[in-house]
């Protein structure tokens, strides 16, 4: 029940923010209340450990003859580590908010806390039924928020398309549940026939598609709440992979093809992440690459490794996306913490390359290259020009900003050492070593020739619309064309049945149906 404490803090904070808004108090009050609420909620996540693993809440749906599954929340170590990462991110977003060059927004803090609570519900989901319900809640939250802020019709349309794609992902879970022996009652009951649908669901729900960003014209939201939004949505999907039974995800014959696809996705995402002009426009690629790594780990029968990538997505992503007032010392420090992404022993990602299922040797160099590019991109994006001067801010804001970043960095270290099955692990250290050496050599070489930093600033903004995005636009246009053709057919048929001769056509169809039944039965 201690889990409910966290949600209590978030709810009370939301309530207090509402009251402050009604009373029209200055934003500093709202910030203080938000920070305090987020801090208490973050602290309460540690309290979850006192009663773990345990069911938190079960809402029995009756009659049992009708509903085989019912919503249930369960706290365990996977939920805890994901929950800690997201609570840390929410707290960091609020602590760093005053230092962001794009201004402050109590509404965005409220949204941040709401999204954190929603994401945590997904982590705590005790069965697929609960997970799909939380997913839908998060999707609706994101949809309405995006629509509220969209100033152009194109953005509204993209928000709806993005929602539709994620809803399709949810639909795949329901389909798998209904048809392929993956009942919504328990994660353990998933069969290998349904694994592919679940992987599709996770892929579609990562929030990467469509690749154009809806928040391009809303920088205030992109940096703070946008970060929580994207990372919470992605991690709430990835958590499913850590819940699935080991070794049952897909049939053996399919595994190599899927591994190849995932390695391709990793390489594409990591390259785009590395070469993008700034970290915010590269965010979908960060999610794509880490999502691919997480799925790959799950496919190899390594749920802890999958969770490690999911948590890394939130924590390291938070570090780089919230880092806007840059100073050399901070950059260096954060760069050092970035080593946690190298799969070295006793780091957060130590377990990521372990796995029960074989991984073809031909994929290893590409997978390692992908990981190296991710780290290089992380380092490169830390090194951009500062968006705002920390020195010009009030003293309290000057203290809060590094505190927020330090909190995230500290949690990356803590997650490697304590609290969940992926902690204090040696892992597959030769891979970690190879990744580290390669990364260090390339970093040193780039540093030496001093092209690294300027390159980041000089890439024109147009480059961020990638070929893949354009290809997907073409694909989308093709689908739309097909839809319009089918619509013409549907309109023609309904016109036929509803027109003056409609009754005759109706009788004809009826007779044909009767004849068909006669043949079939």
């Amino acid at each position, binding site marked *: 029940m201690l889990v409910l404490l966290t949600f209590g803090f978030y709810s009370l904070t939301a309530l207090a923010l509402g009251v402050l808004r009604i009373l029209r108090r200055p934003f500093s009050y709202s910030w203080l209340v938000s920070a305090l609420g987020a801090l208490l909620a973050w602290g309460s996540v540690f309290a979850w450990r006192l009663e773990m693993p345990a069911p938190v809440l079960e*809402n*029995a*749906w*009756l*009659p049992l*003859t*009708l*509903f*085989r599954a019912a*919503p249930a929340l369960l706290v365990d170590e996977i939920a805890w580590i994901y929950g800690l990462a997201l609570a840390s991110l929410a707290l960091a977003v609020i602590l760093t908010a005053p230092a962001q060059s794009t201004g402050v927004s109590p509404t965005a803090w409220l949204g941040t806390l709401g999204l954190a609570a929603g994401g945590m519900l997904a982590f705590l989901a005790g069965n697929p*039924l609960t997970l*799909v*319900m939380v*997913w*839908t*809640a998060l999707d*609706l939250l994101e949809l309405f928020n995006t*629509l*509220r802020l*969209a*100033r*152009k*019709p194109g953005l*509204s*349309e993209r*928000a*709806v*398309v993005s*929602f*539709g794609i994620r*809803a399709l992902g*949810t*639909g795949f879970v*329901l*389909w798998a*549940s*209904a*048809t392929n022996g993956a*009942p*919504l009652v328990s994660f353990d009951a998933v069969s290998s026939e349904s694994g592919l649908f679940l992987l599709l669901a996770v892929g579609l729900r990562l929030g990467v598609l469509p690749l154009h960003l809806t928040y391009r014209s809303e920088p205030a939201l992109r940096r703070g709440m946008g970060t929580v939004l994207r990372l919470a949505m992605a991690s709430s999907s990835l958590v499913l992979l850590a819940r699935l039974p080991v070794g049952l995800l897909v049939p053996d014959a399919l595994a190599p093809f899927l591994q190849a696809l995932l390695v391709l996705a990793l390489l594409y995402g990591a390259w785009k992440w590395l070469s993008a002009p700034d970290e915010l426009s590269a965010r979908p690629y960060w999610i794509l690459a880490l999502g691919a790594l997480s799925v790959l780990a799950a496919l190899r029968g390594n749920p802890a490794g999958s969770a490690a990538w999911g948590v890394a997505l939130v924590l390291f992503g938070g570090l780089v996306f919230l880092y806007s007032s840059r100073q050399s010392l901070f950059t260096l420090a954060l760069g050092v913490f970035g080593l946690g992404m190298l799969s070295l022993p006793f780091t957060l990602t130590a377990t990521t390359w372990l796995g029960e299922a074989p991984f073809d040797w031909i994929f290893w160099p590409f997978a390692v290259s992908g990981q190296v590019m991710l780290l290089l991109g992380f380092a490169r994006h830390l090194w951009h020009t500062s968006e705002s001067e920390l020195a010009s801010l009030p003293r309290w804001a000057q203290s809060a900003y590094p505190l927020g970043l330090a909190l995230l960095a500290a949690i990356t270290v803590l997650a490697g050492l304590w609290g969940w099955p992926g902690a204090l692990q040696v892992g597959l250290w030769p891979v970690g070593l190879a990744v580290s050496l390669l990364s260090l050599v390339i970093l040193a070489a780039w540093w030496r020739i001093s092209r690294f930093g300027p390159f980041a600033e000089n890439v024109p903004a147009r480059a961020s619309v990638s070929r893949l995005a354009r290809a997907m636009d073409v694909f989308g246009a093709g689908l739309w064309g097909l*839809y319009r053709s*089918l*619509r013409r057919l*549907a*309109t023609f048929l*309904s016109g036929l*049945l*509803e027109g003056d001769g*409609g009754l005759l*056509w*109706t009788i004809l*169809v*009826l007779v044909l*149906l009767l004849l068909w*039944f006669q043949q*079939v*039965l």
Partner: protein
Amino acid sequence: MSAPLIWIGLPFALGLLLLLVPRDHWAAWLGGFFAAFLSLLALLAPTDTALNVFGLFSLRIDSTVSLLGRQVSLTPAAQIILVLVYAIGAFWIFGGLAVGNARRLAALGLMSIALLTASLAIRPFLYAAILIQGAVLLAVFMLAEAGKPTGRGLIRFLVYHTLALPFILFAGFLLTGVEVGPRDLAIVLQAAILLGLGFAFLLAIFPLSTWLPMLAEESSPYMVGFILSTFPTFALLFGLNFIDRYAWIRESQAFFQVLQTVGLLTALSGGLWAAFERHAGRIFGYAAVAEIGFSLAAVSLPERMLGLEIVFFMIVPRALAYGTWAMSLAVLRDAAPDLRYLSLQGLARQYPAAALGVFISLFSLGGAPLLAVFPVRQALWEGLSAQGFLPALWMGLASLGLWIASLRCLAVLTMSPENVEWESRETSLQRTMILIGVASMFVVGLLPQWAAPLLQNLSGLFSQISR
């Protein structure tokens, strides 16, 4: 006191009186409260049971009266229907306060409900067809708008329902004496075909469902919503009575196979046409077609009791979705020249509650998680999947069609010109009612166990099917 008098006679009489009430909102308040009272009474005072009222006196409501040599009987098993139907009636009548035409809805709505309730109570139950026809005639008065030409949808609604009557009555005539088992297979076959045609007309089964989108396009969305949430439900209950009564129907595997195919075909046609439609009102009609199909598919499940539970469970979530949707459409219809997408484009910025109502209602009917229809729709999907891949696929495609329709509606409603600020032009009553409807869909979706006590008597209502 007798139950038929309370739940049939009084509401019919009050409906007549409400036509004379001078103000719309008086009629709506009176009618709404009376319907709510009848629902509560049905819940608290089962028929044929002596009740001690506050220790002051004993009350017993007799279930049966004789009328013109026929029996009209509302047994304790019918409690669930009385509770649901009058609660839904109250819901619609109160909603009429926000969208106008409240008196017409309260008066004719109460009378329709009374006649439809009588159709379930009359013995022999074949006479139900006549009572349903009476309700259809009342519905025509509800749907026809003064000063406007009668639409083709309304005419087709009347014609199709009227055509159902002779088919069903003649089938009943043929079936006299073969209630237990078929003595003469030829007669049974003829009766089965007539009965099938009768119910195909009555239930708007594909391809006889064309009147639904046509009516939804032409008539007031709120009136259409009321019709769609009551008539198909009672027609289905009437059909269930047939299945319950005749052993040769309920023991025929072929019948349930045909029912499943027809149900899924109807659902698929509704879902797919909704996905391609560009008129929000017509989408309403197609969604109703899909809902009828889902109900038939539920009845066809081999676990008959499960099927019945699904059918009954769907009534309230569906009414909630229809009610919210109809009210939202009525608001948008007042704001735009018509309900075509071209006219509705960008209206969400001025009518956010109505846009939300349209989207969430349709999304709920599509079976989206978290919303009212989801728990029972998923149960149906799992039940159909156990029958094979194809039924599951058909149902999945039907639901997908409704999802696409809801997303297209939302995309159109939110596609406003650049830099238009958000505002809310709905009246506060409209806004409140739509938001209550939306919130209720979430609550029912999260806590579907509310209906469990009501479903307890189901086996008594259809004693043979549930065996």
